[in-house]
């Protein structure tokens, strides 16, 4: 064995280049080890420890490049040294020619990553359909995050996708988890055996997060876009996704989430459920659970119940276990409501939601106790707010709806609108409770507590008996860390409930006292 080396005076190269040179030298047969580093005293000390220092290096300094080779024979060492200049030249040439880091078309992207099988489209809606068609032509599954795609285009694209055996998720599909990869707004959930088909973005996030937080996991979560269950589209992708999960070996239980589908679409879904060999749990928010039960699926009363039933199935427990859990919590919630109702001011609830489905679910729960509430997206059109910027009696708002998001980012990203509204509602002495959601995950605001806590603290200074009640959709694995967010909110006096349902039920019990 021999150690040989050379130095290049005043030669500067970046660390990656030097590491590649070293790697290429090590690939030469007979080379045991090599190193290419700048000649600082400290690097020389490390070379010494690694057995790669030669006496000639001692006199060299920081601005000299040291190349040392440990080889089986002197011939091999000489051969390696002779190749250093060529390797460096080759690398520099490659760096100069490497200009294709920004891709400008789908064709370029496919060329760069030929093994890709899914294309996510997030561009202005008027161009999205054209790009989606191109992606389908390339046999790629497609997720269209963009909205403002015409329903005619959606139908055409979904027909093509179905014919080719591909998924076309969207348009306006905000979340999906495919093969463990979260797409767009999605949470970091456990991998498991529960598959989800959802025509509701925040519904999918709430259910998948609750499943994960209760120790089970997700195989696939397929979003379809909210319009898929309308009559015009006919549930094409909802049904295709259901079939895909039926055929997926990793999936043992399926959860369906949607607002009530058009009756004709519901019939089609019900017919398909009868062909499914796996347990199916269905929550059609605000819909008739009997229809789901008749189709042979397990109906859930709300998103949380759907998630917990799926968890019970996944863990091999009786589904009554989930219902028992929820019944027990109902009693605890009643006790908490009793306690809180004694010290509140005012009489009205104001809900400020970023998730549309969560807003609908809260309205449904409140309807059972206090009746319909005013909203920009009311359950009953008679309760549509005349002026969106001024709440009336009990009001629950979906701040993510188009009327509020025109010209500004979604409230899951930008808290400014909600914060302003919190301050306004707090200044109204008739308001007893502010109910809200916090949705975590990729794409959402990285530090929601940092946005909300100062506003809430400020509001409670002037209105100490105003209650803030919320739920946090997400997991401890999310970039924001659910546990940490809850801790910060609780430190500001916010009552954080384990789910959107639990938060809405607590509010309904307090207001009903």
């Amino acid at each position, binding site marked *: 064995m021999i150690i040989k080396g050379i130095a290049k005076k005043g030669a*500067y190269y970046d*660390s990656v280049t030097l590491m590649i040179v070293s790697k290429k030298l090590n690939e030469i047969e007979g080379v045991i080890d090599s190193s290419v580093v700048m000649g600082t005293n400290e690097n020389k000390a490390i070379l010494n420890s690694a057995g790669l220092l030669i006496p000639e290096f001692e006199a060299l300094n920081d601005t000299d490049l040291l190349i040392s080779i440990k080889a089986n024979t002197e011939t091999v060492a000489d051969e390696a040294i002779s190749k250093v200049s060529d390797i460096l030249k080759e690398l520099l040439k490659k760096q100069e020619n490497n200009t294709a880091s920004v891709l400008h078309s789908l064709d370029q992207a496919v060329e760069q990553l030929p093994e890709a099988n899914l294309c996510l489209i997030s561009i202005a809606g008027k161009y999205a359909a054209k790009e989606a068609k191109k992606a389908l032509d390339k046999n790629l599954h497609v997720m269209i995050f963009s909205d403002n795609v015409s329903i005619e285009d959606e139908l055409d694209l979904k027909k093509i996708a179905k014919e080719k055996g591909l998924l076309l998720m969207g348009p306006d599909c905000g979340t999906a988890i495919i093969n463990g990869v979260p797409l767009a707004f999605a949470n970091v959930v456990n991998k498991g055996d529960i598959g989800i088909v959802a025509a509701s973005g925040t519904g999918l996030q709430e259910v998948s997060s609750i499943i994960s937080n209760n120790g089970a996991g997700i195989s696939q979560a397929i979003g379809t876009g909210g319009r898929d269950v309308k009559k015009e589209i006919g549930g094409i992708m909802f049904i295709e996704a259901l079939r895909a999960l039926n055929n997926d070996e990793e999936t043992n239980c399926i959860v369906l989430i949607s607002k009530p589908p058009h009756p004709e679409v519901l019939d089609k879904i019900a017919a398909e459920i009868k062909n499914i060999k796996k347990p199916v749990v269905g929550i059609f928010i605000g819909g008739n659970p009997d229809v789901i039960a008749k189709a042979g699926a397990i109906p859930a009363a709300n998103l949380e119940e759907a998630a917990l039933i799926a968890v019970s199935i996944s863990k091999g427990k009786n589904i009554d276990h989930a219902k028992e859990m929820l019944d027990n919590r109902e009693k605890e919630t009643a006790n908490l409501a009793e306690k809180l109702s004694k010290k509140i001011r005012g009489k009205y609830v104001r809900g400020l939601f970023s998730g549309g489905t969560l807003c609908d679910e809260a309205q449904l729960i409140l309807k059972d106790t206090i009746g319909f509430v005013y909203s920009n997206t009311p359950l009953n059109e008679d309760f549509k707010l005349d002026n969106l910027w001024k709440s009336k009696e009990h009001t629950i708002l979906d701040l993510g709806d188009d009327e509020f998001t025109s010209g500004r980012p979604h409230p899951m990203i930008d808290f400014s609108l909600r914060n302003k509204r919190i301050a306004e509602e707090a200044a109204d002495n008739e308001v007893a409770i502010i109910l809200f959601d916090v949705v975590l995950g990729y794409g959402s605001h990285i530090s929601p507590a940092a946005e909300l806590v100062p506003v809430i603290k400020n509001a409670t200074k002037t209105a100490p008996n105003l209650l803030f009640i919320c739920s946090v959709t997400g997991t401890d694995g999310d970039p924001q*860390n659910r546990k940490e967010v809850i801790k910060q909110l609780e430190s500001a006096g916010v009552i954080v409930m384990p789910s959107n349902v639990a938060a809405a039920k607590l509010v309904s019990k307090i207001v009903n006292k």
Partner: protein
Amino acid sequence: MEKIILGDLLPQGAFIIHSTFKNVCNFINANSELIFITNLKKNISANSIYIDNENIAQYTNVLISENSVFLNDVNILPQTEFYDSKVDYSALDILTLEINLQIIPNEYNELFAPESMLFVLLAEKQSFFKSGFDSHFMKNSLNASEIIKFGEIVEGVKMLKGTGKGLTPSGDDFIAGMLYGLHFNEFKHQKPLANLRNKIYNASIGKNPLSNSFLLNAKNGNCFYLLKNFVYLASQSKLVSDNLNELFSMGATSGADLLSGYIFSVQNKIGI
């Protein structure tokens, strides 16, 4: 007329060419102080001269005095703008910045060059360093980081200085990041750390003018454009992959090494 932006901490003197790259020409004066001319805005720094001109290789001498900046005998001072390299932490959402810094090693580790010193913060990155020099470098860096965490900060810095590969050795970039992190710690914990920064700087300078210049800026809290921009964006909750990739476009691993050092200081409350 071409746009010119001067850094806010250009040393004075007559400068001659030190080294030349595609978009950067380094110049050095008799005191071994370094400045550079660049035609990329992202390279702007406290000791840079930005010129919106393809051909920066035409400049062969620079003369800087209190009232003039001569490039090839033409005084450019009257036609320049100035770059403010200081970060005003009091104007930032420090909590958001801290949260973002804390989550970066786990959530964005794929964006760091595998050759970078992220391994100090994330053990799973250690497996990349296999060859003789690399594994000794890694072990030395880990030992140094433990010594620093133990409180023997200057001793640990001495072990890191000048180690690793590259134009500015990775260890120097990491130390520069630590120094920037100390500015954060000073503001966050309201504890003066200028003495500690001076001690670290004095222990880490060597014969490499590139490293020395970088370390001087870090000691004084003069941020290059990419770092300043990153700090501001990360404090506004807009931390996305693009922000990090921009910072990491500095050198091959320099940006990643520097950020690793910055986070190391913040995470371990160095100096507090």
